[in-house]
C-alpha cells in the first residue's frame, strides 16, 4: 500500500512535467497547426534560465578567510553575501523560485521571436518540413547552450526549507515511514496550478475565448475582423513560458544538461499523440497517465514479471493506443487525419 501510494505520487510529478510540455505542444499545434520539435529545447532553455540566475546571484569576489589564522587564506564569497549578509545568503538559497521571475519574460520573448522569425513561414508547408526545420532549430539551440554552459549536468539546489522530505504518510494515515521529497510535492502543485491557469485563461477570458474560436475555425474569426495571427503568436509565447517554467522548476529534481530537451521531447510527443493531437485535456490526462504508468512499471515487483518493462512502457502504450484509438484518448474529429 505504501509503495503504491508513493509510486502514484512519483508518477504524478513526472507526469506533471510531461503534461506541461505536452500542453504547450498541443497549444501550438492546435492554434498554428505546426508540429514543433523545438519545444523540448524550450523546456531545456527554461532550465538554463534557472542556471543563469544562480550563476548571476553567486558572482563572487575573493575575500580573506578569517577563520584560517596560520596563513593568508582566501575564499570565494558571492557579492550578495558581502553586501547584504544573511539576506544575501537567503536570496541565493531561493535562486530557483526567483528565476521564475526572470524566466517568464525571457521565455515569452524567446517564444515570440521564434514564432515571428521562423515558425510563421512554415504554416503552409507540409508537416514533414515543419518537423525538420524545428528539429534543426532544436539542434542549434542545444549546441548553443552546450557551448556556453558545457556538457556536464549542473545541479541546482532547492531552497533549504523544502530540501528535505515531507512526512506525508502521517497526513494520509499511512505511518511515519512514508516520506516524500518536499520539492517534488511543490512541483506537482506547481504543475497543477500552471495547467489550471492556462485552462482558465482559455476558458474564462475573452482573449482565450477568441483563441479557442480561432482554433475551431480560423477563417470565420478572421472574417470578423480579428487579428487572429497576433493572438496565435501570443499563444506560442505562452506555450514557451509554460514549457520554460516546467524546466525552471524541474532543475532541483534533475540537474539540467544540454540534451535534457531532446530526452523530454520524444516522450512529450508520445504523450501528445496518446492524448490526441490538438486536445488540451487529452494532453494533460495522457501526461499524468503515462507518468503514473511509468513509475508503476519501474517497481521491482512488476519488473520481475516483465523485465525491462519500465524502459518501454510509454512507447508500448503509444503503439497500442494509436492502433486501437487512432485519434488518441480525446482527439477531435478532423484534426490531423491524413
Amino acid at each position, binding site marked *: 500500500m505504501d509503495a503504491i501510494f508513493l509510486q502514484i505520487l512519483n508518477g504524478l510529478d513526472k507526469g506533471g512535467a510531461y503534461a506541461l510540455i505536452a500542453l504547450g505542444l498541443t497549444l501550438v499545434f492546435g492554434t498554428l497547426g505546426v508540429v514543433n520539435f523545438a519545444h523540448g529545447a524550450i523546456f531545456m532553455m527554461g532550465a538554463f534560465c534557472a542556471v543563469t540566475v544562480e550563476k548571476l546571484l553567486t558572482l563572487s569576489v575573493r575575500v580573506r578567510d578569517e577563520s584560517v589564522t596560520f596563513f593568508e587564506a582566501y575564499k570565494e564569497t558571492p557579492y550578495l553575501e558581502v553586501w547584504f549578509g544573511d539576506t544575501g545568503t537567503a536570496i541565493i538559497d531561493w535562486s530557483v523560485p526567483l528565476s521564475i521571475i526572470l524566466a517568464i519574460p525571457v521565455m515569452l520573448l524567446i517564444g515570440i521571436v521564434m514564432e515571428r522569425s521562423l515558425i510563421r513561414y512554415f504554416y503552409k508547408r507540409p508537416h*514533414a*518540413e515543419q518537423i*525538420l*526545420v524545428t528539429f534543426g532549430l532544436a539542434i*542549434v539551440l542545444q549546441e548553443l547552450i552546450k557551448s556556453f554552459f558545457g556538457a556536464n549536468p549542473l545541479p541546482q539546489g532547492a531552497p533549504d526549507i523544502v530540501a528535505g522530505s515531507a512526512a506525508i504518510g502521517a497526513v494520509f494515515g499511512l505511518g511515519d515511514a512514508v516520506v516524500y521529497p518536499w520539492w517534488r510535492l511543490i512541483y506537482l502543485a506547481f504543475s497543477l496550478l500552471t495547467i489550471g491557469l492556462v485552462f482558465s485563461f482559455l476558458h474564462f477570458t475573452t482573449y482565450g475565448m477568441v483563441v479557442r474560436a480561432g482554433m475551431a475555425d480560423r477563417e470565420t474569426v478572421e472574417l470578423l475582423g480579428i487579428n487572429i495571427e497576433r493572438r496565435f503568436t501570443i499563444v506560442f509565447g505562452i506555450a514557451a513560458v509554460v514549457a520554460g517554467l516546467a524546466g525552471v522548476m524541474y532543475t532541483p529534481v534533475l540537474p539540467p544538461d544540454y540534451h535534457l530537451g531532446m530526452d523530454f521531447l520524444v516522450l512529450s*510527443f508520445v504523450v501528445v499523440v496518446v492524448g490526441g493531437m490538438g486536445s488540451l485535456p487529452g494532453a494533460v490526462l495522457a501526461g499524468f497517465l503515462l507518468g503514473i504508468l511509468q513509475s508503476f512499471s519501474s517497481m521491482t515487483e512488476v519488473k520481475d514479471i516483465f523485465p525491462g518493462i519500465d524502459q*518501454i512502457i510509454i512507447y508500448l502504450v503509444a503503439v497500442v493506443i*494509436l*492502433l486501437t484509438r487512432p485519434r488518441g484518448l480525446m482527439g477531435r474529429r478532423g484534426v490531423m487525419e491524413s
Partner: protein
Amino acid sequence: MTNTKIVSPKQDLIYMAILSAVVLTMPIWLQPFGAAYPDLMQKFMIFGIFAIGYNILFGLTGYLSFGHAAFLGVGSYTAVWSFKLLSMNVIPALIFGTVLSGLFALAIGFVSLRRSGIYFSILTLAFAQMSYNLAYSVLTPITNGETGLQLTQGDPRVLDRMSGIEANASLPTPNLFGIEGVGYSGFYICAALLLISFFIYLRIFRSPFGLKLRAIKSNQNRMGYTGFSTRPYLMTAFVISGMYAGLAGSLLAVTDPLAGAERMQWTASGEVVLITILGGVGTLIGPLLGAGIIKYFENIFSAFNETVLLNAFSFLPDWLAHPVASVVGLFVGEGWHLTLGLVFMLIVIFLPGGIMEGISRLWRLVTRRNKAEPVAGTHENKEKEQASAGEV
C-alpha cells in the same frame, strides 16, 4: 517536381558506368581534399548505402521515418554475432545482417504503416526508442549493454574452426576469403556493395513499382481509386529500406567489429534524415552526395581546435585574432553539430529540395541565359521560362 521522364536503359548503364568510375577512383581524386584515407571513404560508402535505402522510403513514398537507426543497429549486432559464432568471413555477416533487419522492418512496418503522416513518424520513433532502451537494459546478454558487443579470443567461430582457421594471439579481423575488411581492400568491398545496392536502387526507381511508390506520395486516395492497395507497396518499400539500413549496419561492423546501442538512438535516425534532405529527397544521386558531404565536413570540422584556429587567423592583428578564433570555434571542433543544425535549417527553409535542387536551379539559370539571347520570344522558350519561374 519528381523526375518522371522516360530514361532508356542505355542511359542508365552510362549512369552506372560514370558512378562506378567516380566511386572506384575515389582514392585518387579525393587526394587533394585530404580525404583519401580508407576509414573515411568507407564511411562515405556505408552512409551512402544507408541514405539511398532511406530515400526509397522517404524520397519515393514521402513517409518520414524517425526510427531507421534501429535497423542499422540490428544489422550491426547481427553481423558481430555472426563474426562471433560462425566465421570472420563477411559474407554470412552481411547476409544475416540484411535479412534480419528486413524481418525486423517487416514487424515494425506491419504496425507502423497502419498510420500515416506525423503518426507514422511517432510510431517509428517509438519503436526505435524501444529497441534502443531494450538494447541498453534487458537485452544485455545479447547486446552487452553499455560496453557494446565485442569480439573475444574465446568466441566459437564454428565455421572458421571447421575449416581449420585457428585464431592466433591477436583478435581476428573480418575478411572476405582472406581479403581484409579494413584499409583499402575494405574500401573496395564497401564500394562494390555500394555499386550493387545503387544498381538495385536505380532499377527500383525506374520500375513500375517505383512509379507506384511515387503515386503514393502524390495522392494516396487517387491511387486507391485506380484500384491499387497502397499497403503492400508501402510495406515492400519499408522492408527494402530496412534491409539497406541493415546492410549499412553490418558494413559498419565489418569495418570495426564493435556494436553499441548508441547506433540505434534517435539522433542517429535524425542523421540519415539530414543526409537525405541535404542531398535532395527523392532524387537519384542526392543522398549519396549528402552522405559524402556530411561525413567529409564532419571529419574536417571536428579536427579543428583552438590552436589550429589561432594559426589560421594569425594574419590578423593579435587583438582581433582571439575573438575571431573564439567565434569561429563555436562552429567547428566540438561545435560541429551547431554548424550542421544551422545548415540543415537553412536547407529546409530555402532549398527544400536539397543540393540537387540547388544544382538544377543553377543549371537552369545558366542554360536560360545562354539560350535566351538568340531565340528570345519564341513560343517554346517562353513556356520554359514560365515553368522555371513557377518553380523558383
